[in-house]
């Protein structure tokens, strides 16, 4: 069956992908492709950068300038790509561990600089590639292969972490709420400055099994029931009790890093 989106934006000979049945990552990857299509970007001018982990395999399937880097460092590599050639639309794909544990320093500083990078966090609350260890977004009390008695860590809210560090666009949606997710990715791509979309994913193989979350479908239903749109939460706070809030947390205009640097270059010419 021919699918123009897949044929246009994916490396057909590299598919099928390596992700497990029921994994939410493919939904995010296709949402990114649709958002790129909607944004009308020239494929040759798009660069997708990732670190290490399950989600970081996505760029290999996507037909752009793709860079699969070292664990945690995608944003640092991407900063070099973007500053060296600001014409490129640079999209960073990173998992929750990659982005907020080993790469946490790069996340807060890329956000602080407000450099025009679009970061999509594939948050499945677990280290999947290495077999199910707890990550900085694993809920307190949940189990992982390195938290056999329940996780005593407190989790990060990655969207709020990015927002707190200075991201000028930060939004959160889930793989169940895929239309909303795609809309945020489009907005993040169009946004000038550091943008971050947290895409809450599911890992039935490790996180689901360890925590008795049922099948992949059960986990999708859990997302459906556990997340409430920010606008609904504002109007009807009673509906948000005990729920996670998705929506646009930050959307503001501030000077962008590569433009500020270009202004320095221009000033020195005079």
């Amino acid at each position, binding site marked *: 069956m021919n699918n123009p989106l897949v044929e246009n934006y994916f490396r057909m000979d590299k598919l099928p992908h390596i992700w497990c049945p029921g994994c939410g990552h493919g939904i995010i990857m296709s949402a990114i492709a649709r958002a790129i299509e909607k944004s009308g970007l020239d494929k040759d001018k798009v660069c997708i950068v990732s670190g290490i982990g399950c989600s970081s395999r996505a760029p290999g399937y996507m037909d752009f300038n*793709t860079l*699969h880097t070292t664990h945690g460092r995608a944003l*640092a590599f991407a*900063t070099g790509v973007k500053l*060296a050639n600001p014409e490129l639309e640079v999209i960073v794909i990173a998992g929750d561990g990659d982005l907020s544990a080993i790469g946490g320093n790069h996340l807060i500083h890329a956000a602080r600089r407000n450099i025009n990078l679009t970061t999509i966090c594939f948050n499945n609350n677990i280290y999947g590639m290495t077999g199910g260890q707890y990550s900085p977004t694993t809920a307190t009390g949940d189990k992982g292969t390195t938290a056999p008695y329940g996780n005593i860590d407190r989790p990060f809210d990655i969207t709020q972490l990015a927002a707190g560090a200075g991201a000028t666009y930060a939004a959160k949606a889930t793989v169940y709420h895929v239309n909303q997710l795609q809309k945020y990715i489009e907005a993040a791509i169009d946004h000038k400055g550091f943008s971050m979309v947290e895409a809450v994913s599911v890992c039935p193989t490790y996180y689901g099994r360890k925590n008795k979350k049922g099948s992949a479908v059960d986990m999708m239903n859990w997302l459906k029931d556990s997340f409430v749109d920010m606008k609904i939460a504002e109007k009807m706070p009673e509906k948000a009790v005990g729920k996670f809030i998705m929506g646009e947390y930050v959307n503001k205009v501030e000077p962008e890093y590569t433009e500020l640097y270009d202004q320095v270059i221009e000033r020195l010419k005079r």
Partner: protein
Amino acid sequence: MSKVIKFLQGNEACVEGALMAGMRFYSGYPITPSTEIAELSSEKLPKVGGKFIQMEDEIAGIAAAIGASLTGKKAMTATSGPGFSLKQENIGYATIAEIPLVVVNVQRGGPSTGLPTSPGQGDVMQAKWGTHGDHPVICLTPDSVKETFDLTIRAFNLAEKYRTPVILLTDEITGHMREKIEIPDVSELEIYNRIVPEAGDDYKAYHVDDGDIVPKMAPFGGGFRYHVTGLMHDETGFPSNSTQNADVLIKRLMGKIEDNKEDIITYEAYETEDAEYLILSYGGTARTAKAAVKKLRAEGIKVGLFRLITVWPFPEEQVRALSEQVKDILVAELNFGQIKLEVERVVKGNANVRLCGKANGEILTPEELIKAFKEVL
């Protein structure tokens, strides 16, 4: 043709050389005694339309430089001691992904925080083996301000020619010392730029065309959409788990340096023609060694100096040939014998190999070296 005479620090000469070689991107993190390289780069790069960025840490410093190199810019990062340790993983990345890059390490006393403002040469083996896995290394070490300028240009040229990170291993002596230096006109210099594919080529990102040493390198954004990874990959650039394929790739990476040693290796042989004894040294310490050789020669002792300019790959054949001529080789270095071990390996017992070394933050004096030398007489 304009010739400019300047009075510069080694670190400053490094930046002057880098700019002449075509550096247009620098990313790094402040660390003594390399910081002047970052400071001067931040001042000079925007004036030529280049970019400087101070990153959040040493790892990001090299990562951003690799990213910039992929867009077609010549990129550099500089560091010292602890920062060199932190950069190791991404040196390996640039090696396997074949990204041209210059990494400067102005050596200080170690281990750990050690002696931040004092010289050391304890990172020579780290320059070779610091990143994990088997990998080729090009590492150059200057003994003067002028040679820092020259070798920085050479480091960029070799990085571009062999598509590999090149380590410029200086030390606090040459980094902070000031000397008169004549800056040549750029037209007098040989500047090498990476080979890029022609538009319309059927581009396989990691395929070596006949007659080429390395794959042609397309800049990101140049119309060739390809994949770059630190995983073992095939000639298309995509990951491959095949052991056969891994064998081909790792042997090609090793071979492109090993097979071109004659092009890469440079050294200085001073008063070695009739030498019965040899002092072998490198970097700032080689200046002490040359002073010692001059004094010993004045006493009528037939001693010569072999100075490494390329540390890695090691000039095995040249050192082995000299070992057949001399009775004794004294290795002078600011560590406990890292290159001495390499010399022993290479000379295979042809000559006695001794060490005059220390790692307490002091430089070696000619008197110390002469005293150590005379123990053999």
